[in-house]
């Protein structure tokens, strides 16, 4: 069974494009990319239909963070898994805030393709 749709939020356009390519190759049927909370909100239906959300914590200076996206998704009833991707140190206050969220998982950049594959595998129903 193929993994479900993935929402990928990162402010780096190159990374969004590469991640989309890799996820599609790993069997993800649909990848919704967004650079900010506003873009996620604009694509609300697509975002909420995903099974997995991969959120960058730092979405640019003075911009809402990945934690804000998490809050919005949960408020809107998003039922899938949420994983934070970050390049920041574990001691960073934003990372600490994300780590304290219920059901959230933190993964450090750079992720290998193998790690991405395992992340998707974890979401598959047992057969």
């Amino acid at each position, binding site marked *: 069974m193929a993994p479900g749709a993935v929402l990928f939020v*990162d402010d*780096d356009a*190159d*990374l969004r494009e*590469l*991640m989309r*390519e*890799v996820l599609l*190759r790993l069997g993800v049927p649909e990848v919704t990319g967004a650079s900010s909370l506003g873009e996620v909100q604009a694509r609300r239906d697509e975002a909420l239909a995903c099974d997995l959300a991969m959120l960058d914590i*730092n979405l640019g200076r003075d911009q809402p963070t990945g934690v804000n996206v998490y809050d919005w998704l949960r408020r809107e009833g998003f039922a899938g898994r949420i994983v934070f991707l*970050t*390049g*920041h*140190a*574990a*001691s*960073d206050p934003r990372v600490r805030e994300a780590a304290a969220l219920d059901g959230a998982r933190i993964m*450090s*950049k*750079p*992720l*290998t*393709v193998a790690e991405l594959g395992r992340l998707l595998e974890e979401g598959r129903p047992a057969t």
Partner: protein
Amino acid sequence: MTFVVWTAIGMSVSTGLLHAVLGLRRPWHATSLAFAVVMALQAAWYFCGLQIYEATSLAAAAPWARRLTVVVALGMAAFGWFLAAYARIAIPRPLIALHVAGVVAMAASAVVTPMGAGVGAAPRLTGVAMLDDGVVHIIESDLGVVQVAFFGFVALTFAAGVVLGIQLYRRGERRRGLFLSAVTAPVVIGVGLDLVRDLMGGTWLDLSELGAVSLSLVMSIQLGLDFRADDRKLAATLAGVAQRTAELSAMVEAALEVRDRLNTPLQNLELGLAMRAEDAPAERATLAPMQAAVVELAELGRAVERSLAGGRVALAHPEADR
């Protein structure tokens, strides 16, 4: 007369309390603490002297003379401590040993003699008429070598203060040196005159008591000035430490920011190289070192994070290290 002595006791106690409070602040201020002890013993000395002034018989005065001797012995020990702390010098060990021996001998005399080493042979209680027509009593006696040594030891201890004051003055600490010499010299002179009085059979009151009053007053002012100066130095040092901490913290944050910003390009490289390797199997051998380089760069970044993250926490919460 009683009123004057009680006033002196009140001054000594209040000065002692003030300097005890100042001395017990962290970090402990040894000079203030030592001075507080000196003042407490000075109050006890005045009190013992008052009991002798008011005694109606030699038998009643004798126990107070012994207690006075013990108080003077302890006072000499405390004053030695105060001098060392105030002058901030390391006193040679032989000198300390001599001083301690003198203190012990003085205190022991209160146990083995009827009235302590300060009272010689044939003691008698003599009335001294005061200006207010009242009468107080002092113990007169025929002084011997022991009594001269007793007063000499007290005078030498205070004379050490005069010498240290001169040394401080020469060292550049002019105000502190002048204060120390100015407050200890009158006590030396007072003790000397008291000794002359006893040798000549005079009947004037203890002049050393007046010297002690001036010591407590003037030295208290000087220590107050010292304390304020030390407090200012401490505040300046703390401000300097806070500034260095802020600078270090900014450096740590900058280093972590650089490390963090490297991760997105590294993620792009990681994914880009992986896809290229899949699309062009013939290039895998060429791409492998690049992929290994990305892994190594990522590990280096994590090493930087590990070494700096502890510093970030320590700088943000310096009190946690205390």
